[in-house]
């Protein structure tokens, strides 16, 4: 990033701040990345705004309600061998998502090394971890609905807004994880059967898929902090 580098036209691209003016004014493609990657970033930017709207509305209704807010440490605790451990399932889900982010980062790296077999298996591992995350979320929802009587319009522990914001935010995030699992599997099998080999052997797509997956993990970081730890 420190020195100027020549692009394929032979024009030197200045680095740093002069590079910003250069990129935006050079009368051609602004971002020197594959178009799929630029579009994925822009999609993720729009998704950032959607999740921000959800989290900000959660903050607003939580401030505005006069009813007590249910204690997440108690609501999301699990009793294991007679001990009630707060947030244990959420902690396990967090670790699973981070593990899957790591395997995804490895898959991207192996993709650029054109190691198709390792890329495939790492992507399948990522998808499997993602699927187990969704499974645990289904367990958590069931526990909340059946055992604790939480509904989108009310619950016995406190403010009614707890249920509506919980189901909306974690539901939308879970939907993103589920879509990511399908996306990962589609790309993984295309890597395996040589789809990209027939298109010039470019594995940038693995990185683009990775961007989506890391974003899902990123959103969970914020949900974990604001919804579960607050």
């Amino acid at each position, binding site marked *: 990033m420190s020195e100027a580098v020549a692009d394929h036209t032979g024009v030197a691209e200045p680095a740093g701040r002069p590079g*910003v003016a250069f990129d935006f004014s050079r009368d051609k493609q602004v971002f020197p990345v594959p178009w799929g990657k630029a579009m994925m970033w822009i999609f993720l930017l729009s998704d950032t705004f959607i999740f921000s709207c959800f989290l900000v509305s959660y903050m607003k209704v939580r401030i505005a309600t006069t009813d007590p807010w249910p204690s997440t440490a108690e609501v999301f605790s699990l009793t294991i061998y007679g001990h009630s451990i707060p947030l244990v399932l959420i902690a396990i889900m967090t670790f699973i998502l*981070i593990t899957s982010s790591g395997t995804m980062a490895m898959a991207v790296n192996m993709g650029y090394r054109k190691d198709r077999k390792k890329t495939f298996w790492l992507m399948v591992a990522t998808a499997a971890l993602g699927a187990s995350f969704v499974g645990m979320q289904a367990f958590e929802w069931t526990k909340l609905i059946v055992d604790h009587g939480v509904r989108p319009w009310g619950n016995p522990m406190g403010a009614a807004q707890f249920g509506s914001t919980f189901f909306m935010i974690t539901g939308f995030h879970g939907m993103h994880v589920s879509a990511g699992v399908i996306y990962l599997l589609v790309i993984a099998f295309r890597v395996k059967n040589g789809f990209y080999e027939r298109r010039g052997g470019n594995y940038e797509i693995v*990185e683009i898929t990775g961007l989506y997956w890391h974003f899902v993990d990123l959103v969970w970081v914020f949900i974990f902090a604001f919804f579960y730890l607050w």
Partner: protein
Amino acid sequence: MASAEGQQHPLAIYFWIWGLLFVLSFCSYMVDYLNLQGNLRWGLILLFMFLKAGFIVAIFMHMKWERLSLKFAIMGPPVAILVLISLMALEGHYVQDNRIDNYGESTFEPQELPHH
């Protein structure tokens, strides 16, 4: 320029960040487990959250190695959310004050959680 021929970096940096994310997640879980309260709780939760988010975006999503024009285009717009957060916090407190003035304090009786 790394992005010209794809983002290829040594594996070691991913393992380091991976480990660091585990440590940071464990730390934020401990904040709740040790039942820290007040400003300390908030400072630590936000610190660990931003560190985790920063490492994911910078290293795993390779933002660190992208050109500054892409960094600005993607990281700039979310700053506007800070305005939305401040406006909605003000609005929230205003609505709560109105509710207390007009309907009085909450009469909600929380029920004990069922223990299994």
